[in-house]
């Protein structure tokens, strides 16, 4: 069992799905600073995914400073800093673009989109 919630669907990038799930778990407090994070091997085994993919997931999360590798201890959840780095803004811009395109396509105006975001924000 893994210490965070994740549901994997085929057809989408495994890496992105797991990175998203871990990020969400950290934001919601399922994972807290200092918590031990699974190794490549147990991530691979639990999710039945390729160890190379598991390795990349850990690398991405470490690079985004959500996890930190501690020699002798293993990987732990880093102290979460909400400050927005340009890298994170870049990730967000991608999602925003998709949201805007989809909203326009469905004919939803900006006000309704913002309301939907506010509702989800809480």
């Amino acid at each position, binding site marked *: 069992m893994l210490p965070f919630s994740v549901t994997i669907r085929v057809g989408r990038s495994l890496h992105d799905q797991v990175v998203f799930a871990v990020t969400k778990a950290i934001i919601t407090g399922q994972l807290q600073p200092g918590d031990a994070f699974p190794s*490549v091997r147990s991530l*691979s085994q639990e999710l039945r995914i390729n*160890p190379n993919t598991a390795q990349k997931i850990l690398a991405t999360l470490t690079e985004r400073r959500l996890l930190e590798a501690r020699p002798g201890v293993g990987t732990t959840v880093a102290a979460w800093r909400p400050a927005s780095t340009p890298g994170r803004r870049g990730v967000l811009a991608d999602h925003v673009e998709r949201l805007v395109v989809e909203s326009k396509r469905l004919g939803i105006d900006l006000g309704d989109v913002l309301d939907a975001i506010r509702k989800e924000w809480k």
Partner: protein
Amino acid sequence: MEPALATRNLTCRYGRTEAVADLTLTVEAGTLFALLGPNGAGKTTTIRTVMNVLRPSSGRASVFGVESTRLGPSELQRIGYVSENQKLPAWMTVGELLAYCRPFYPSWDDALCRKLLTDFDLRTGDRIGRLSRGMRVKAALVSSLAYRPRLLVLDEPFSGLDPVVRDDLVRGVLELAGEERWTVLLSSHDLDEVERLVDVVGFIDAGRLVLGESFANLHARFRRVEVTAGDAHPATPAVVSADWIGMRQAGRVIQFVETRYVPRETVVRATEAFRANQVDVFPMTLREIFVAIVRDRREARP
């Protein structure tokens, strides 16, 4: 870095039938390579030749840099091979089978062997002849994993097995994950299972390699595109681009598979080509990509 496994212009004939034709592929060390293809494509023949069960008619195959026809104990000790219809001695018990295999492998790991038996719910006292097919595959897998092979070759390991057994097998295989330079060559039709595991996809059809590329790449360049044309009765689309395959149409909806997806550009091109009101783009599963490629090749045949 030497590849774990390679074939060069490998050809295998059964009488006049060319089961494998001029096949060249490389499985890099440290990757999980999935050999995919329709039934009769030559997957099993390829694997058997590499494992020196069959001799090539021409060309060559090698494992850890050693010619397949010269594989000896020092290579075989590092290779685990499980095939769909593996013959195991029916009169032996599971325990006897493992005790028989053990002395051949200096790297045999008793603790791993016990763990796999427990995980697989296998009892050492059970006679192999009385086991279900799923249990027999599990027994074969334990005997091939317990010595922590650096190369694992699995020919249709999941076929015809129930989901729980398949899940057990995948978990067992991943027991070795994290070993240094651990390599897997796998042929399978259970594409949802494979999608989670694969690094590189080798697609063969009629004994030839059609495509060999990382799944990440494949996943990035294949998209199902759905277009709603502006006209009520759009002209039946001719070949607009060689990169668009499996073109189909119903009413004003046109569907095809983009094989060279570029964000934005694909949508712009489809909008122009069909004077579209709407273009939707969907990522595809390995199963969907496989079906699209096989259909396209079938349609292209005279």
